């Protein structure tokens, strides 16, 4: 089991890292074996950052990620390699995950070199063959081919087969099918469902609610780095509690149902308090991009605009909200269904 506890990631931005951008704020959830957990959010919600944190591609700022009780961020050398034996990731763009100079099956050779140097070549070929067959590929079709000779679906499945060669328990699947065609998408999804039957825990990161609904047992809705709703998939989708989840569900285009009229809820309504804060005090990083002009005349003109906008509350930019928005408490509304209040 992999669990996240109050995980926060703050990126340094600006010329000398003077500004900070919180990408994930105090996220806590578990990825259980034998389940697909869908992490759903719009662009910039921090969903990919969470995936990268779990895969240790970027360090956490605060909070803890533990795998089977050990803190992941402290792992080094051999222990880290063992961690990767159990936790692997597959990413969005299959074409950029490969080096086009080499044959696609080189990804298997690198696994052998790092993890199974003692296995004989013949034995290894057998294992690769089995692994490819388990993801629905015929080894003859894909081995010894270059990436341009294979389709996106095939490449994506080879990457999953690569992960399966290791003794993986957790797979982070970051938008793995958004680059695939509709007719082949479902096959990769079904493959993930089969894997979970074998006890694998999958973190399925997506912006597409229909995919999350199809494949997952549990759903986490992320907004601006904050978990706003999480729980059993059917509870979140059938009985959404947070305004944001409701908005997402009414906006998603459906085949057999036209869009319903807008709910009309303004999720980012400026409060009087916000207006006060904005008018009086804002740090450079939260300033409107316009206010960073280089000429003095421009700066003066823009300061006037900024003031006006601040008064009107227009300055509640994404960055402002990320820094100042309070992190809500998750409250259990029913069994296995938490909502931010």
């Amino acid at each position, binding site marked *: 089991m992999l669990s996240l506890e109050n995980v926060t990631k703050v990126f340094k931005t600006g010329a000398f890292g003077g500004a900070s951008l919180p990408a994930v704020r105090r996220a806590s959830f578990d990825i259980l074996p034998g389940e697909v957990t869908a992490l759903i959010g719009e662009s910039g919600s921090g969903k990919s950052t969470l995936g990268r944190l779990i895969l240790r591609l970027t360090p956490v700022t605060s909070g803890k990620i533990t795998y089977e009780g050990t803190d992941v961020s402290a792992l080094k050398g051999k222990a880290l390699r063992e961690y990767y034996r159990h936790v692997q990731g597959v990413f969005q763009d299959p074409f950029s995950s490969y080096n086009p100079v080499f044959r696609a099956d080189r990804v298997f050779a690198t696994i052998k070199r790092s993890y199974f140097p003692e296995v004989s070549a013949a034995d290894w070929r057998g294992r690769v063959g089995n692994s490819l067959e388990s993801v629905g590929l015929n080894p003859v079709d894909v081995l010894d081919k270059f990436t341009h000779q294979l389709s996106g679906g095939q490449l994506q499945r080879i990457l999953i087969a690569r992960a399966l060669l290791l003794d993986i328990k957790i797979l982070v699947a970051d938008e793995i099918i958004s680059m695939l065609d509709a007719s*082949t998408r479902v096959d990769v999804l*079904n493959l993930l469902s089969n894997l979970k039957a074998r006890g694998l825990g999958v973190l399925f990161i997506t912006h597409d609610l229909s995919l999350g609904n199809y494949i997952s047992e549990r759903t986490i809705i992320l907004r601006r780095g904050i978990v706003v709703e999480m729980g059993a998939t059917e509870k979140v989708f059938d009985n959404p509690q947070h305004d944001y989840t409701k908005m997402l569900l009414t906006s*998603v*285009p459906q085949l057999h149902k036209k869009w319903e009229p807008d709910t009309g809820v303004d999720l980012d309504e400026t409060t009087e308090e916000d207006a006060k804060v904005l008018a009086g005090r804002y740090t450079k990083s939260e300033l409107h991009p316009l206010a960073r002009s280089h000429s003095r005349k421009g700066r003066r003109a823009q300061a006037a605009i900024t003031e006006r906008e601040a008064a009107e509350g227009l300055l509640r930019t994404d960055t402002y909200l990320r820094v100042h928005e309070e992190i809500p408490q998750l409250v259990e509304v029913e069994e296995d269904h938490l909502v931010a209040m």
Partner: protein
Amino acid sequence: MGLKVENLRLCYRTLRGDVVAVDDVTFGIEDGEIMGLAGESGCGKSTLGNGLVRMDIRMAQLGGRVELDGKELPISNDKAMRRFRFADVSIVPQYAMSALNPTRRVGKMVSELLKSRGFDYKKALPELERRVKLVGLDADVLHRYPIELSGGMKQRLVMVISTLLNPSLLIADEVTSALDVSTQRAVGEMLLEFRDREFVKSTMVITHDLSILAQVADTILVMYAGKLAEKASADVVINSPLHPYTQLLISSLPEVGVRHDEKTLVGIPGRPPSLLNPPPGCRFRDRCPAAFDRCVEQPPFLEVKPGHSVACWLHADAALPAGGPGTC
């Protein structure tokens, strides 16, 4: 009036031979109609859209003709097309977010564009501002650089700019693909509003996403490997498609609001044929569960019910006599 495309063939010239990406395509769009053009990647849908506005230097017209409001569009003649582009036929390109000039403020860019078409920016400005406000943006965006705007804002601006001269035909190429669901909805509703306010007469929405077409399109045209597969009103294509490809494609789409615990969706095995020397006969034959011996011949694209055309031998016998009422 509207758009009429007859037997259009467009190809890409490559060193290995001609890749015919749009092969013998015939269809029409009525005034006030929003037609969705759907298909998988590489099926020729973007080539068709681009071909009606601007042919890439690698592209060539092998045959057929295009008529807009009764006048022939000289699509293979770059110079002659200049008169029609932007004014009569306009495109919102794929990746509209990078279509704005990064070195100009948006307003300046529009003024240069209008000047090149012989219009005065000052005179057009009130209308431009009105439309910018209509799509929910502040008129202030005209003084900003593209980098200061978010993806959704840029997408909406490009749509406003493309339709500023009230073109007869707007080609919207994957306008919703890179957007979040909430912005997607706003852009989808914009397409409807632009039509209702008659900023554009007819619209062609190119996308791989059938569910967005179910929301905005009046008719849907499905392409497969450079050929037309099926055309009918949106409801008919979604709910009772005839072509096996459309049927399989729609049944493979997961949906929100449906519980999938019981039934597992299945994809379509195989992949589309290469358009360089495609095999003779129906191009979907290899992946089609209903294929039979007649499929070695190319099925004609025939109208089988009023307003419903399909290219499949299973339904070819039911074809209505050509030239009947409601011919596509």
